[in-house]
C-alpha cells in the first residue's frame, strides 16, 4: 500500500481544514466572541501539521482504488477529530464524544444534534457547524481535486470513494476540471439561495448558516425550532433549494451546456420528482385537518418531504406529532434518499430504480425462462456488474442497518426511537421520531449508541465500503508490513 501518498493526502486535508477554520475566527472578531481563540488555536497547528506532512513529496505516486478508499475514510475521520476540538475545548459541548458526534454529524451533512438549546451556542460554533455541512456536502477530497494542481490518472479513485451514487461519471475528460465544474455549480447555487433568502429579509447570519445547511443538505438549524419561526416565503425558498441540491449535478451541467433535452430526459431525476410529488400529495391530504388551511398544509408537506428526501433534516413542524401515515411516508423517504451525484444521502434514487428494474427482469425470467433482456437506464444497457454491485450494496446496507438497530436498542428505549435514530443518521438526515424527533435531540442517548451512530453517519456518507474496508485484515496487514519493512531497512 502506498502509505506516503496517503500521508500526503491527509496533510492536504489538514491544511484545508486549517483554512476553513479561519473564517470562523473572523466571525469571532466581528461578534467579539472569545471562543474564536479556540478556533484559531486549532487552525494554526493543523495548518502547520498539514504543511509539514505535505512538505515531503510521496516516494511513489502509484495509487489504486484501495488507497483511494483508505485515504478517503481516514481523511473524514481526521477532519472530524480536528473539527470537534474547538467545540470541545471551548466548553460549549463539554463532552468529547458529544463534540465529535456534533462534528461528524456536520461533515457528513446529517444535522443530528446533541445540543439541547442551540440558541445558547456562540456565533462561532453555529457558523462552524454550518460550514462543516457546506464542505461535507460536495466533499473535501473533491475540493482538493479541484484546487490542488496534480497530474496522473488515479485521482478518479478518490472521487469514486467520496462521491455518492452507484457509478461516478465524469462531466469532462479530466478529474480536475470535473471537480471544478461541480464546485462552481455548487458555489453558484449557494449564492443564489443566499440572495433569495436576503430578499426575504432574513438576517445575514441566519441566511448564511441556513444556506450552507441547505446546500450541503445538512440540516443544522440555528434555532431550536429549526425553521418554523421564519416567514412562509423563506420556507418555500428553502424547500425548493433542498430539492435542487438533491438533484444530480450532471443535470445543471447539461443545462449550462444548453442541452436541455438531455437534461430533462435524465431518468433518475424524473423518478425523483415523481416520488416527491406523490409523497407531498399523501402527506398533504393526511395533515390537512391538522393545519390552518390548505396552503399551510401544502407548505408544511412540501417542506418536510423535501427536507427528508434530500436528507437535509430541517423542520417547520414537529412531524413527530403528525398522523401515522405521514410519519410512515417520511421514514420511507429517509431510505430513498436523494439522487446520485448530488449532495444528499440515503440509498439514492438511482439505486432504487436499478433494484426495481432488476426485480422486474427477474419476474420476466420466471415467465420466459429463456428470454434475454438487458436492464436499461437512460436508454443505455446496464452491465451485470452494476446490477450485482447495486444488489450487494443494498444487502450490506441492510445488514449494517440491522446491526446498528440492535446495538442502539440495547439502551432500552422504544423501537421507533432506535429504528429512526439509525435511519436518520445512516441516511444522513438528522431528526428521527419519538425521542430523537425534530423537537428533541440526540444528547440523551447512551455513549454506545452515540459511537454506533457516529460510525453510521460516516459509513452512510461514504457509501459504506470505503469505511468498512478500513477493517479488512488485508489493509491492516499491508499497512503494518510496509512499516516493518521500513524498520528493517533502517
Amino acid at each position, binding site marked *: 500500500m502506498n502509505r506516503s501518498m496517503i500521508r500526503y493526502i491527509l496533510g492536504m486535508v489538514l491544511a484545508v481544514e486549517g483554512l476553513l477554520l479561519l473564517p470562523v475566527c473572523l466571525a469571532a472578531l466581528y461578534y467579539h466572541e472569545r471562543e474564536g481563540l479556540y478556533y484559531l488555536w486549532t487552525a494554526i497547528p493543523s495548518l502547520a501539521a498539514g504543511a509539514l506532512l505535505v512538505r515531503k513529496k510521496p516516494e511513489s505516486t502509484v495509487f489504486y482504488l484501495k488507497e483511494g478508499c483508505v485515504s478517503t475514510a481516514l481523511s473524514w475521520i481526521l477532519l472530524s477529530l480536528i473539527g470537534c476540538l474547538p467545540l470541545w475545548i471551548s466548553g460549549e459541548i463539554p463532552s468529547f464524544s458529544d463534540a465529535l458526534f456534533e462534528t461528524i454529524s456536520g461533515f457528513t451533512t446529517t444535522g443530528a444534534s446533541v445540543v439541547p438549546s442551540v440558541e445558547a451556542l456562540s456565533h462561532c460554533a453555529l457558523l462552524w457547524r454550518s460550514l462543516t455541512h457546506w464542505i461535507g456536502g460536495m466533499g473535501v477530497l473533491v475540493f482538493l481535486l479541484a484546487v490542488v*494542481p496534480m497530474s496522473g490518472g488515479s485521482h478518479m479513485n478518490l472521487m469514486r470513494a467520496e462521491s455518492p451514487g452507484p457509478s461516478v461519471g465524469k462531466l469532462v475528460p479530466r478529474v480536475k476540471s470535473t471537480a471544478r465544474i461541480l464546485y462552481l455549480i455548487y458555489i453558484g447555487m449557494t449564492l443564489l439561495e443566499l440572495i433569495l433568502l436576503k430578499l426575504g429579509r432574513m438576517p445575514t447570519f441566519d441566511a448564511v448558516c441556513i444556506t450552507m445547511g441547505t446546500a450541503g443538505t445538512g440540516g443544522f438549524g440555528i434555532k431550536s425550532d429549526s425553521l418554523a419561526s421564519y416567514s412562509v416565503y423563506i420556507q418555500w425558498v428553502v424547500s425548493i433549494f433542498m430539492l435542487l441540491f438533491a438533484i444530480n449535478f450532471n443535470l445543471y451541467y447539461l443545462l449550462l451546456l444548453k442541452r436541455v433535452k438531455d437534461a430533462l430526459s435524465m431518468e433518475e431525476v424524473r423518478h425523483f420528482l415523481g416520488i416527491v410529488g406523490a409523497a407531498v400529495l399523501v402527506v398533504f391530504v393526511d395533515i390537512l385537518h391538522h393545519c390552518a388551511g390548505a396552503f399551510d398544509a401544502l407548505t408544511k408537506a412540501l417542506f418536510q418531504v423535501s427536507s427528508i428526501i434530500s436528507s437535509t433534516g430541517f423542520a417547520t413542524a414537529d412531524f413527530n406529532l403528525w398522523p401515522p401515515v405521514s410519519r410512515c411516508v417520511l421514514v420511507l423517504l429517509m431510505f430513498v434518499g436523494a439522487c446520485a451525484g448530488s449532495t444528499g444521502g440515503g440509498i439514492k434514487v438511482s439505486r432504487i430504480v436499478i433494484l426495481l428494474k432488476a426485480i422486474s427482469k427477474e419476474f420476466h425470467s420466471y415467465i420466459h425462462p429463456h428470454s434475454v433482456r438487458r436492464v436499461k437506464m437512460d436508454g443505455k444497457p446496464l452491465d451485470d456488474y452494476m446490477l450485482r454491485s447495486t444488489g450487494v450494496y443494498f444487502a450490506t446496507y441492510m445488514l449494517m442497518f440491522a446491526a446498528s438497530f440492535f446495538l442502539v436498542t440495547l439502551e432500552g428505549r422504544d423501537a421507533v426511537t432506535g429504528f429512526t435514530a439509525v435511519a436518520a443518521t445512516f441516511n444522513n438526515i438528522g431528526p428521527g421520531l419519538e425521542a430523537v424527533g425534530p423537537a428533541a435531540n440526540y444528547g440523551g442517548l447512551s455513549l454506545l449508541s452515540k459511537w454506533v451512530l457516529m460510525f453510521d453517519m460516516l459509513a452512510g456518507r461514504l457509501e459504506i465500503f470505503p469505511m468498512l474496508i478500513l477493517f479488512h485484515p488485508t489493509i491492516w496487514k499491508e499497512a503494518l508490513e510496509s512499516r516493518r519493512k521500513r524498520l528493517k531497512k533502517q
Partner: protein
Amino acid sequence: MLGIQKEAPKGLKIIIVGCGKVGSTLVEQLAREGHDITVVDKRTDKLQELTAQYDVMGIEGNGASYSIQKEAGVDKADLMIAVTDSDELNLLCCTVAKRSGNCAAIARVRTPDYSREIGYLREKLGLAMVINPELESASEAARILFLPTALEVDSFAHGQAELIKIKIPEGNILDGMTLAELGRRISQDILICAAERDGHVTIPRGSFTLRAGDMISFSATRSVAKQFLSDIGFKTDQVRSTMIIGGGKSAYYLAQQLLNVGIAVKIIEINRARCEELSVLLPKAVIINGDGTDEGLLREEGIDRVDSVVALTGIDEENILLTLYVKRVSQAKLITKINRITFREVITNLDLGSVIYPKYITAEAIVRYVRGKKNSMDNNNIESLYHIFEQRAEAIEFHIDGVSDVTGRPLMELPLKDELLVSSIYRDGKVRIPSGQDVILPGDTVMIVTTHTGLNDIRDILI
C-alpha cells in the same frame, strides 16, 4: 500526483477512437502531456481499464456514429484520432468528424491497397495525417539494415543528421575513455547525447567515462557518423542479404524498400495463400512457404550464412525466441518486432540487438503532431520527436522562429536544466555540433536530447 508536477498548460481536446495497442499507448502518452482526452470504444472492459488508469473520459459505442461523436464532444474537439483495427472505420470516423466538427483528423490506415493512395486520401478527405505503423516500422528496420552496426537510427535536420545508438563491445577503444578524451582523440564532430548503463539512462557530461556494455546514442552528420564508426572499429557496410520471417504487411513494406536498393530478400511465411500474394507483389524476392520456427527449415534456407534476420511474425514470443536462436547460430544482424508485450527491462536484458515497437512508433508520430499543433499558436514548432532508450529519453527538434531567452547567448551561459543537452544546430543548410561558445539564433533548428518528458517549447530547456 498531487502537486508533484507543475500544472500542465491548457491541453488540446482530443478524441481517440479505438483502444487497442496503439490507442492505449496514445492515451498513456497524451494524458501524461496534459491533454483532455475522450476515448471511444465498443468494448466496455477496455474502457474501464483505461479510465481507471488514466485521467480520461470513456464513451462506449461506435466511434463512427454521429451521435456518439457528439456525446464525445466532437464540436469542441481539436483533434480526432481513429486507430481501430479497421481502416474503413477509421476513415469513416475521420470523415464524420470533419463534417460535424471543426477538428483535425488523424487516421490509421494499414492496408497496402489504400496506402498506395495515401496522398489522394489525405487530400480528398482533408485528413491532417495518415499513419501506417507497418510502413513506419518497416522504414525503421530498413534504416538499421543500411547501417547494421547501429541498434537504432533516427534522422534529423531533413535527413542530414542522424542520431545513432550503438552498444560498446568488449575491448573497444572507447572502453575506459572519457567523453572529453573522445573529443580530443577521435572526433570533435560527434556528440554523445545519451548513455545507458545498468538500465539507467543519463545525459553524460565531459567527465563521463565510457565502458564496455554501455549503450550510447550519438548525433552527427551522416558522413561523419560513418567515419566515426569505422574509426572505432565498427563495420559500416549495409547488409547484402536479409531473411524476413513472417510475411505480414510490414514484411511487404520492408522487402520493397530493401529490394529497391539491391539487397537480396528471402521471406518465410507459413500461409500458402499469403505466399502466393507476396510472390505477385514482390517478384524479385524469394518466398518460402514454411514454418519460420522450424529449425530444420531455417538451416535449409541458410540461416547461418545470411547477413541479417528480421523477425516479423505476429507473435512476440516467437520473434524473441527466433532472435535468440539465430544469435546462437550466426553472426547475422538481428531485428525483432515486438508488438504487444511490455516487459521492457526484461527485453533489454535479453540483448536482442535492435528491437522495433510499432505501437511506440505510431504513438510517437502522433505525439509529435500533437505537440506541434499545440505550439502552432506560439512561435516555436517541433519539427520532429523521437523517443530513445525505450522512451526513457526524448530527442526533440525545435524550429526557432523568433527571439527569446534562449537566443543570442552562448550555450555555456544559458541556465540549462540538468539531464539536458543541445546536441546539434542546423543553420543555413548545415549541421553543426555545438560547443559552449555557440549561440542559438532565430531561424535555426535545434535538437535537444533530454530525459525530461513533455518539453513543448524551446524555452522549456531553461531551468
